[in-house]
């Protein structure tokens, strides 16, 4: 009875897709989620007249039938496409620097449009921009080849077909952009998206950043019309329809390990129920699994601890949700996404996010992609930022949490008003603030981090992918989600769930 082919811990984006893939492959899968909702960060909530998106800004690697990315293919394979409606986000981004008023740029989607606009802003950037996007295309093709080669690429093929990919792959963003002689100002504008990955251009792998920008600009970005909650609920529904089981409101307290075989033998739920399984896919982080889900720490291989300690916990989430009682036209909010930084230098910005008073932010005006996201005459605006290190903990006491939330909210709103010249404070009808504490509450992610492990240097996506076949330390235990091989972000988490499920399917074949 209490025996499953695989237990998936956590119904975040990775866990949901892993469960659906396993269920669709005819495996007996149990998905255990501590909250009563699926999705993890991918959800929605209501305040007064407003239904807020909890986290999604825009999907990457999606696109449309005629020109689509990996996430689109995955959703199609899993029969999800016709069940969720998506719309395009209108423009790539607007980026504003607080320290230099002239630094205010709006960038369009479409590679030619993007290059032309950049040339307008930064004369003589065209050649390097074109090289950048050509690299993006080559990286996409090379990644496809690597994926098909399943960990055993032929280096002759790589050298012949993807030489530029190989030459840029070991480097972070800055050295490559310098090597292709991109003017500094164009680099600054191009690097706007850095905060979506949570690591500055000096630490962020070029491959990862380049392909993300390439996918955004070439495929445009999409959002679901009924919030990410609809994606999460649809996947959860499909899991059940395909014979999977979901326990909501339950937690995995312990993963049971067979000491002699160094393999998973089951899990214990919070009510003491023991589930027999040889396979666990954890959407919860290695920090959580090794920190409290394996009770006898002697059973954790030293190498597994080293692997987790090698990584750094990433940015800790801060979000501010506003329901405004004026239309976007009345307010003068023309763009969908506003990236507001102190300066356009991502390395300095990253450092300043170690300070609790920092108010760099990415703000989404949902109604600019979905005019009916809220009632006529109202607007939904949500802010996202990151705190790194312990600055949030230092500011937080047991007693001051509500006060701290108010103070942070005020600072962030003030910065938005200053940067855009748009007054919003008098029109706030609903306000909700989410801090690292909120993210910790809903998902138990360590420290309330929302981006998994920092994608820096040797822990960038490329080296993670290159070693993903070799980083199993306990047989039967795989990870998915932001801490796993594809790093964080909606598309990466979904794709990581699919990878983890496929590895587990391979292992299940060997079991028999």
């Amino acid at each position: 009875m209490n025996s499953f082919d695989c237990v998936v811990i956590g119904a975040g984006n990775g866990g949901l897709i892993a469960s659906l893939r396993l269920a669709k492959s005819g495996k007996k899968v149990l998905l255990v989620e501590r909250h009563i909702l699926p999705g993890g960060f991918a959800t929605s909530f209501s305040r007064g007249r407003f239904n807020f998106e909890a986290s999604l800004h825009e999907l990457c690697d999606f696109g449309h039938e005629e020109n689509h990315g990996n996430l689109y293919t995955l959703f199609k394979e899993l029969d999800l496409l016709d069940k969720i409606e998506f719309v395009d986000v209108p423009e790539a981004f607007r980026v504003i620097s607080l320290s230099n008023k002239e630094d205010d740029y709006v960038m369009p989607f479409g590679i030619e449009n993007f290059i032309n606009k950049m040339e307008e802003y930064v004369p003589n950037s065209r050649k390097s921009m074109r090289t950048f996007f050509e690299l993006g295309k080559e990286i996409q093709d090379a990644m496809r080849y690597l994926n098909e080669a399943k960990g055993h690429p032929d280096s002759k093929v790589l050298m012949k077909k993807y030489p530029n990919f190989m030459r840029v792959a070991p480097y972070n963003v800055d050295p490559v952009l310098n090597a292709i002689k991109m003017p500094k100002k164009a680099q600054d504008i191009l690097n706007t998206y850095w905060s979506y990955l949570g690591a500055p251009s000096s630490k962020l792998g070029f491959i990862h950043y380049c392909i993300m920008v390439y996918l955004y600009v070439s495929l445009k970005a999409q959002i679901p019309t009924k919030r990410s909650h609809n994606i999460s609920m649809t996947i959860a529904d499909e899991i059940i329809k395909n014979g999977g089981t979901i326990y909501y409101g339950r937690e995995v307290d312990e993963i049971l390990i067979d000491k002699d075989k160094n393999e998973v033998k089951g899990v214990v739920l919070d009510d003491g129920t023991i589930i027999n399984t040889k396979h666990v896919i954890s959407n919860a982080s290695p920090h959580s699994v090794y920190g409290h889900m394996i009770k006898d720490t002697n059973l954790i291989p030293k190498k597994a601890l080293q692997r987790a300690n090698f990584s750094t916990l990433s940015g800790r989430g801060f979000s501010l949700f506003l329901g405004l009682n004026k239309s976007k036209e009345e307010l003068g909010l023309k763009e969908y996404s506003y990236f507001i930084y102190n300066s356009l230098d991502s390395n300095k910005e990253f450092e300043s996010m170690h300070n609790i008073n920092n108010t760099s932010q990415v703000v989404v005006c949902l109604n600019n992609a979905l005019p009916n996201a809220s009632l006529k005459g109202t607007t939904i605006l949500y802010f996202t930022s990151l705190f790194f290190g312990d600055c949030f903990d230092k500011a937080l006491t047991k007693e001051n949490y509500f006060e701290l939330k108010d103070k942070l909210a005020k600072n962030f709103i003030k910065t938005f008003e200053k940067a855009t010249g748009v007054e919003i404070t008098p029109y706030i009808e609903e306000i909700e603030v989410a801090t690292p504490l909120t993210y910790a509450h809903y998902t138990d992610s360590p420290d309330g981090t929302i981006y998994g492990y920092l994608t820096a240097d040797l822990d960038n996506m490329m080296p993670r992918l290159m070693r993903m076949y070799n980083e199993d330390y306990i047989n039967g235990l795989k990870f998915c989600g932001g801490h796993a091989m594809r790093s964080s972000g909606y598309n990466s988490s979904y794709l990581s769930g699919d990878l983890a499920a496929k590895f587990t399917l391979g292992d299940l074949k060997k079991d028999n």
Partner: protein
Amino acid sequence: MKVKVGLFGLGDMLKFKHLGDNREKAIEEASEQELPCSYKANDIARLYHPYKQYLIIKDIIKENEDTKSFILVADKSKQKELAPFKAGSYLSIYVHDKDNSLLSRTYSIVSSPKEVFDSNEGFYKITIKRVDNGALSNFMLDKATIGMKLESSEPGGFLTYNSLRDSKNVIALAGGVGITPFVSMAKAIVEGIEDFNLTILYGVRTSKDILYKDELLDIINKSNNKVKVIHVFSDEKLDNEEHGFITSELISKYASKFSDNSNYSIFVAGPTLMIDNLRNNELPKLNLLPKYIRIENSPLYLDGDSNVYNIKIITKGKEPLVIKAKGNETILEALERNNVMIRSKCHLGGCGYCRSRLIKGEYASTKYLKLNEVDKKFNYIHPCCSYPRSDLEIEVFEY
């Protein structure tokens, strides 16, 4: 196109080939120390958002003939501290009556947010007025004793002040025991936790029905003119006191007395009759924007169906259970009467804590039900404001 980053392109290629090995080496050099089993943010998150609180009645205060207050402290054998709250919040209280069936209702916290951190012993104070046929209020007034254990939710609710959203001037419209959230707010203002001007129009039948008379007087005196209380007697005429019901004229009269009388927010708590009258008749005359009106509804009841239905309850990992439910009790009440405890909080249909999945059957919900489009599509319901109208099959998520 040929891109070279290093001096020699070939070196870059080798570097790429070594990327995996270099990662492997870096991992081998990483620390072998055990990973932390707790984090400050996660610990404080659990303090602020406990799934359930275990409480003991430390004291019972008789306020009047049919109203008592209860001092609730943490059951130290189960939890060290109480969850902090914003003034104006409520708790959902759970008790087991003699048949071991569960009863739950929400009550606003009347104590100050600071009193949770009281150095002697943190506490919540709630005030309960007897409701005709009210299962939990009658139980608490007649049977609850000092030392009795009960459980509660985390604090919740949206009748709280936010300086970015609300006007600096707040007119509170309180009916009867609806005064409680505003007493907490008034205390918070005096203690410097909140900073706004609060004028409470307190509707009561007669002077005998006034709750917290002395306590509020004391607060007013200490409030540096920030807190004012005006009694509005419906069944008694007194000199220099307001008489009748709370009307738009009365609200305007006191709104004009704020020193800076530019605008004001209205917060409302009280019985359904009063709230309906304000919402439908009085508040529209004031022409206020929706953002300036915050109403905490009282539970609504759908009477009129005295049939008894069967509800089949599915809880994953357990055998299905069939219970009897009356057409005039909420699905949540039916579950609790049968000692099935699911998460719940607001008892109005808005917070989503009791969210459950309807598999089969018909039901009716009160007008306060708030369910997003997606949850509707997937047949989710909020049992706290929904009544069976046929035999039902539902999936619930137990505590």
